[in-house]
């Protein structure tokens, strides 16, 4: 991943250098006011957007006196809206009547009384005009005036709101975010109807000018965290923000850690929940993945459904997820440690089974485990990358390779196949940690091959020390377990019903300064 980004960045950077001459001339022009003559405007724009075949200039002559120039990117604007709500009223108005008294300027006239569209603004300089053209508005230049009208007729872009593929839920809303920032914000506003839901817009990326939005609920979110988010975002200097993943890597606390200290989600209800707990969200235009910070370890085993379901099931499921997490990390290495170092621990009957199944296999159990795990990871990666229709045949091949053939050929033992399968199943249970688990599994295997259980134990301790070292935006990553925050244990491994979760997470407010301000989530019901 790291190398990929780097090369991408280099490419972007190189293209920047090529265009730098152009850009510089751009920069000088931007501050300029709009020339009065539309011909001048047109030639200037043609200069800026040279070789941009998708830019449309349309000149309209209503009567001898009034000339208009409409500029927009083809396909970017909703042509029907442009024609019906903007062009037709203007044409109707000016072709039928003579211009009224000169007291009002034409642009004001058009803006205030002719055009049907609500989203209409004025601008006086070329820079703003160019920016708006680029972001998909239609620009209306009027001959003889040094102002241009920006008409918001952006065509709805991208997908419809649909259920996200990555976070499927049985219970609960199915709306997922889309690539469009405004749609996403709307989806969120629909859920939290509160003026305290703040959206701070900033622009990131020198080339891409991506809209990024910091979102939080004032009074619930910790001000310090919000400020920290602002500071960290401001420090980002990069050519392109193509996905929220770019931002994630820039703002995360530890750059070496395998564990995510920044969360992301595609689901509206999940995001709303996080915001209401006091977290800060970062929307990024062009991606359905919304970042949430701070992100703690416990969040990786929380799912949005947990809060919609009975607390007993939730508790059970959370414990199950924890178990799956442990198994997917440790099972192959524990097996290797047992077979290679501590046959003592294996029950006698099982030992005979294992020994029998391993008879005649040329590899050590460690090599066997590595081979099988790598094969499995390749299968998984292939499954993600390749075109969907081939998936069927891949899964068949995979099953044969991983299953019977390897055993029949005497390359892997039966038991190893079972172990790798269990590990694979478990690794899918906790999606946010799939990547960390994938690498850790190999490291654990190496440790097991080196020192058996002791090696594994050392590594487990090391991982936990690492986790204790980690912080996400100043919040200890392993909270609420360490440091122990008793009130927050209600929503950890063991959960209580939603009516008993009286307080918002306390860990998100580490300093006592504003401790009581946003803690209470609901009134305690004393009387029935």
């Amino acid at each position, binding site marked *: 991943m790291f190398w990929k980004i780097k090369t991408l960045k280099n490419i972007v950077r190189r293209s920047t250098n090529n265009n730098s001459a152009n850009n510089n001339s751009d920069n000088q022009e931007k501050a300029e006011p709009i020339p009065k003559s539309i011909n001048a405007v047109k030639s200037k724009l043609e200069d800026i957007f040279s070789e941009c075949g998708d830019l449309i200039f349309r000149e309209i002559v209503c009567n001898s006196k009034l000339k208009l120039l409409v500029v927009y990117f083809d396909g970017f604007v909703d042509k029907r809206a442009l024609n019906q709500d903007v062009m037709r009223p203007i044409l109707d108005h000016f072709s039928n009547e003579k211009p009224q008294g000169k007291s009002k300027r034409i642009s004001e006239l058009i803006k205030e009384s002719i055009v049907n569209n609500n989203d209409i603004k004025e601008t006086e300089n070329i820079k703003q005009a160019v920016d708006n053209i680029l972001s998909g508005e239609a620009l209306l230049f009027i001959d003889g005036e040094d102002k241009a009208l920006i008409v918001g007729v952006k065509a709805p872009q991208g997908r419809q709101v649909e259920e996200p593929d990555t976070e499927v839920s049985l219970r609960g809303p199915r709306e997922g975010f889309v690539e469009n920032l405004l749609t996403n914000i709307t989806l969120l506003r629909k859920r939290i109807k509160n003026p305290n839901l703040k959206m701070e817009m900033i622009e990131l990326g020198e080339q891409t000018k991506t809209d990024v939005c910091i979102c939080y609920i004032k009074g619930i979110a910790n001000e310090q965290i919000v400020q920290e988010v602002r500071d960290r975002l401001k420090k980002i200097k990069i050519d392109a923000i193509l996905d929220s993943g770019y931002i994630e890597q820039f703002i995360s606390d530890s750059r*070496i850690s395998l564990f995510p200290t920044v969360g992301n989600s595609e689901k509206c209800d999940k995001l709303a929940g996080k915001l209401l707990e006091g977290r800060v969200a970062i929307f990024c235009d062009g991606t359905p993945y919304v970042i949430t910070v701070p992100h703690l370890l416990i969040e990786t085993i929380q799912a949005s459904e947990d809060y919609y379901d009975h607390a007993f099931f939730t508790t059970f499921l959370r414990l199950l997820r924890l178990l799956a997490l442990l198994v997917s990390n440790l099972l192959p290495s524990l097996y290797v440690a047992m077979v*290679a170092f501590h046959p003592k621990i294996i029950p006698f009957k099982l030992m005979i089974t294992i020994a029998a199944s391993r008879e005649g296999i040329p590899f050590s159990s460690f090599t066997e485990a590595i081979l099988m795990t790598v094969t499995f990871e390749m299968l998984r990666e292939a499954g993600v990358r390749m075109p969907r229709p081939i998936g069927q045949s891949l899964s068949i091949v995979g099953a044969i390779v991983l299953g019977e053939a390897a055993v029949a050929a005497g390359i892997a033992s039966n038991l190893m196949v079972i172990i790798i399968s269990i590990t694979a199943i478990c690794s899918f249970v906790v999606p946010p940690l799939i990547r960390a688990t994938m690498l850790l599994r190999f490291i654990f295997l190496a440790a097991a091959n080196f020192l058996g259980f002791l090696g594994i134990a050392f590594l487990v301790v090391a991982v936990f020390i690492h986790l204790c070292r980690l912080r996400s935006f100043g919040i200890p990553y392993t909270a609420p377990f360490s440091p122990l925050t008793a009130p927050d244990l209600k929503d950890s491994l063991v959960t209580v019903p939603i009516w008993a979760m009286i307080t918002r997470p306390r860990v998100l407010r580490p300093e006592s300064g504003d401790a009581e301000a946003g803690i209470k989530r609901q009134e305690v019901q004393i009387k029935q």
Partner: protein
Amino acid sequence: MINRKDKWFLSTAMLAVLCLAVLFLPGCWNNRDLTEINIVTALGIERSEDGKILVTIQVVEPAAIQSTASGKGKGGGAQPKPVFVLSYEGETVFDALRSMLSQVDKRLFLTTAQVLILGERLSKEGIVEVLDFFQRDHEVNYEMDVLIARDVTPAELLEIENDIDPIPAMYIKKTVENTVSRAKVKRTILIDLIKELSKSGRQPVLGQIAKAGKKVVRTEGTAAFKNGKLIGWLDPYATRGFLFATGKVKSTIVNIPADGGKISMEVIRSNGNVDVKLKNGKPVKLIVKVNLEANIGEYEGERKKVSPDYLHKLEKIFGEEIKKEIGRAINLAQKKYSSDIFGFGEQLHKFHPHYWKKVENNWDDVFSNLPAEIIVNAKIRRTGFIKNPIMKER
């Protein structure tokens, strides 16, 4: 920024190198695959005539076990044998075990050993010395069963193969384990033996194993020790008496003569303890107290209606019968072997340490000459599905 990125790169590279180094670290210490060990299931130790230690091992062949377990009768070819047995003579146990590697292919793995069979000659000369290895080694299972081979060498016993269980050691272990329902052999695991050997005022007792035919063994009766040396045998009934007295009976069948026939009583619960009665600071009596509950398991007597009074009468006879067995055991221990296998001395040691100090050295003589009082309190609780045997309707 540059500095941080460099550090990032450096640490990643170091981690990668470290992982690779560990991955390819050849021949790690203590790393032996399961296919590189011989799984020992049983150990036999005997002293040869010239005073050396003869160690016999029984090793399983996992593949053969699997094929006998799953695909019996698959193909007519010669089935591989599930176990092999090997003996080796050495100066000490450890020496013999290590030297044995000149005859077997893989390292011997002892944790899986289920039984340790001690030979008769060895036991007579003392078992304390050979047990040292088993306490010291880190791979020995402290929970394996220890038995004494009677009239047969351990090697002969370990070579027995039959169809009951493909692994003879498991077969032996199971027969010993089911003493919980017959109480005719004492089950001793290694840790208990070690503890008993070091206790003052108690002599160890081990279960005995004998050959009962070409393909079967019999684990019945026990062997009594004195100061770490085999001193004699207890027959199955004396063994049961001993087990009753020490409270180790879980369940057993006791036959009592009644009404011109026999009644088999199924003991379902029993506890017993031993004590020494002191008078004026001197022991005057050994006391054995046993409480037990039983059901009528089988009635082969003259047909009779079973009434509560009759049960009470039976209880008495039943108690007498058990008293007889216990008396037999105590008599053997006192008169014949002069060895305090019941742990009367231990009781003295624990509760009257001052007196114990005085008699510690000649306790065996004191013990042999004390009268014993046996109190059995037997209760018969239930009669099974039916009350009376078949009687002609009148």
